[in-house]
């Protein structure tokens, strides 16, 4: 264990990390967002879902540093007297959960199909790549909207309300798998003719086993970068869907839902209800994206 830690701090990755101030700041911002979201139930100043603690007298309190602000509510309160900061922390939890799950789903689907297409070739390959081509013609947010709409229409209303979160994850995941499939297929095509794969084939290792334990470990590197860059995109897709009112259920508001709710109060001057969740969303997405950019450059030997 000691040795592993030492090897990490001696690595090129760590060296390039310490040399990039932007990356360090992004890592800190991302860490704050993630920790704040994960530990929200323990560290949030209020529980926005505890109806007993809500008091309408506290509604529409501006942020603490303004004249009418209350110290108790740092970023102010919304129309129901909910603390905006706590709502953001709980909302970030939902946003992160959906973003990460959707990315994992897209990765699993894309990697398996890309591996199959690249290794088996032939009709499967043409079919899968054709589907990729068609899907990539459309922006991913449109695909996610459509999948969400179709599932919504296909399921009875009560059933849909129960599994709405999974529907969003599924819709966003489906909209993003082609990128993973393309990446993996490309590297698989290179790997499958290398000698170690030929050797495995000669001694009679089954196809499935070659794909999983020989080819997969050698094509997974670029996937990590695509996944990191995709996480920001997935969080944004979720926020957009929820902002449009077709994403996560209102009982589990994400950052996008908070922005949509706050949008109704923009004209009466209560800007903080919508702007602060927006700032949190930007901070989260921007820091994740910058980390992804750094990882891509750091892992690319040509750019060293």
């Amino acid at each position, binding site marked *: 264990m000691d040795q592993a830690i030492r090897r990490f701090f001696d690595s090129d990755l760590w060296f390039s990390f310490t040399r990039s101030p932007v990356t360090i700041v992004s890592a800190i911002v991302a860490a704050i967002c993630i920790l704040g979201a994960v530990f929200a139930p323990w560290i949030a100043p209020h529980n926005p879902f505890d109806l007993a603690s809500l008091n309408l007298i506290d509604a529409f309190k501006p942020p603490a540093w303004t004249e009418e602000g209350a110290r108790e509510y740092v970023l102010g309160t919304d129309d129901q007297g909910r603390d905006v900061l706590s709502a953001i922390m709980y909302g970030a939890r939902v946003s992160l959960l959906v973003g990460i799950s959707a990315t994992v789903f897209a990765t699993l689907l894309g990697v398996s199909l890309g591996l199959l297409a690249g290794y088996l070739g032939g009709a499967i390959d043409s079919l899968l790549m054709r589907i990729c081509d068609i899907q990539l013609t459309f*922006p991913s*947010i449109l695909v996610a*909207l459509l999948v969400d709409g179709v599932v919504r229409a296909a399921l009875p209303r009560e059933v849909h309300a129960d599994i709405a979160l999974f529907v969003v994850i599924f819709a966003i995941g489906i909209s993003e798998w082609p990128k993973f499939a393309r990446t993996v297929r490309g590297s698989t095509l290179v790997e499958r003719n290398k000698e170690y794969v030929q050797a495995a084939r000669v001694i009679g290792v089954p196809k499935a086993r070659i794909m999983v334990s020989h080819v997969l470990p050698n094509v997974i590197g670029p996937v990590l970068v695509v996944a990191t860059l995709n996480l920001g995109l997935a969080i944004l897709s979720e926020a957009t869907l929820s902002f449009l009112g077709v994403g996560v259920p209102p009982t589990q508001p994400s950052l996008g839902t908070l922005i949509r709710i706050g949008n109704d109060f923009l004209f009466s001057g209560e800007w903080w209800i919508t702007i602060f969740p927006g700032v949190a969303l930007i901070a989260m997405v921007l820091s994740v994206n910058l980390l992804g950019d750094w990882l891509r450059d750091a892992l690319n030997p040509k750019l060293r």
Partner: protein
Amino acid sequence: MFAFIVSRIFQALPVLLAVALISFAMFAYVGDPVAIMLGQDYTQAQRDALVAELGLDRPFWVQFATFIGNAAQGEFGLSYRLSRPVADLIAERAPATLELAFTAAALALIVGVPMGVYTGLYRNSWPSRFFLTFSLIGVSLPTFLIGILLILVFAVWLGWLPSFGRGDTVALGGWTTGFLTLTGLKALVLPAITLGLFQLTLIMRLVRAEMLEVLRTDYIKFARARGLPNRAVHFGHALKNTLVPVITIVGLQLGAIIAFAIVTETVFQWPGMGLLFIQSVGAADIPVMSAYLLLISLVFVTINLIVDLLYYAVDPRLRIGRGKGGH
């Protein structure tokens, strides 16, 4: 040239057919239109009669062929939500979306290309640094937040511009336009900026990167050595050679503009196709969804086709038949 166009059209057809198949499958298998049309109480005999009348008992492929035939004539049936012909609904809203998308794309091009050229030529001047920082904001802010921020500043705090709707429109035949009235033009400003900002920054960055690349090439050095004026070198030689990737991206981004019009139209309550689509998704209104899907894919395929043809016009190397060899 002719053979090239024909082969591209034949490549586009399977895409359209696949999308048509998906739209039809949505029509046929999602939800129960018969139950919706019959209402609460009905007998099995009534149901069978309606199924036969609508032709739902015929084989899948026959129904699919009928669907394509109807779609080609612009016939998509009735909206479940509004009980009006889908074709009428879309025709009413198309002008709003097209005017918005056109203005946004024009804005992105007219502002983005000069900014890109400028930042490419004077890469270390302070306006260039400012433009680059500004473009980072444009790339990382989600569309709906840009819209909300613009509304907050220009509609709520300053009160200069309206924040929703199209203002007054003038009907020209079947087309309603907001270009001819003052309120219509004012209402267009914020949505067009919201929709165009991402494309603007993208075009600027792309033109800048291409300019930097082209300015290093030998033929630019040769043009300078021949003593050509800066203007001729920058615009006649350099900019012209950045156009191929710019055309591709702009063409592909037109599709993205139409997709993100859904978001912009929701923020600004802009009465276009995107708003219609999002209301249909919320209400599971399948006929509108599948018609919109088909229409959008037709637009996308057409744009891709035009981009390919423009390639052909701009890059003489493609005409010699070496295939696509980059720029």
